[in-house]
């Protein structure tokens, strides 16, 4: 055997794994179904869309901003060789983030660091809540 994956091999480790499988947080709450996983957050100035996209350069990603949505498209390549184990997803993927809020379309920025994509969508100035002063007639 070349790389040993025998079930009897690392016995103490097997018990750890058994427990971990019981308490896996991601699978338990039914997330992780869509690929890639997304985090969406906001602060006073912007909306942030983050995604885990390991192994992809920014050029291999296609980000499209339409009127109502942000579309994330790309393809994860497969490595050449004889596989013993394949867990990393491969192939085309696409995710659509519906934007129900107006954003400053010209100020949208995307960065990719350590396999995590961050898209910053600034809230537009005109759409921020404003106080309207009422003049007494």
């Amino acid at each position, binding site marked *: *055997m*070349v*790389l*040993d*994956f025998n079930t009897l*091999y*690392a016995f103490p*480790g097997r018990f750890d794994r058994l427990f*971990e499988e019981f308490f896996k*947080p*991601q699978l338990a709450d039914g*997330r*992780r179904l*869509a690929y890639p*996983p*997304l*985090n*969406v*957050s*906001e*602060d*006073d100035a912007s909306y*942030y869309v*983050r995604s*885990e*996209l*390991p*192994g*992809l*350069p920014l050029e291999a990603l296609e980000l499209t901003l339409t009127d109502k949505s942000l579309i994330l498209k790309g393809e994860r390549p497969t*490595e*050449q*060789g*004889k*596989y*013993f*184990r*394949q*867990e*990393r*997803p491969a192939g085309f993927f696409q995710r659509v983030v519906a934007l129900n809020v107006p954003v400053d379309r010209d100020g949208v920025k995307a960065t*990719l660091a*350590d*396999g*995590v994509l*961050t898209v910053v969508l600034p809230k537009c100035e005109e759409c921020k809540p404003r106080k309207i002063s009422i003049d007494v007639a």
Partner: protein
Amino acid sequence: MTERNTDLEARTEAKPLPRVSPATDILEREDGFYVYMDIPGVRREDLKIDINENEMVVTGRAGQAASEKETFLEVQFGPGEYIRAVSLSDLVDREHIKASLKDGVLTIHLPRLEKASPRRIPVQSA
């Protein structure tokens, strides 16, 4: 919305980071074995690879990329500690293992030992 946010904060601060087993590919090529692990969010400083006798353990810590002020509308991944052990066979040349991290993918090259390369044994006539 706020409930989910406090939930996330509680997870990151109070408890130790959740342990995640990273998706791993193991494959063989002419020059040895290759191990690929998806560990997005882990910087090189936060990554450790330990080799014991016949087990290689990869541990990495992915931090929270968001700032404190942000409120989360949707959370599908979070900070965590990646941990994965791979057994090494005797065929692997332990002295020449190479690892590199690029775009959140860890690549480990495990070359074959020289003497383990296949060779033909000549049969001599008596």
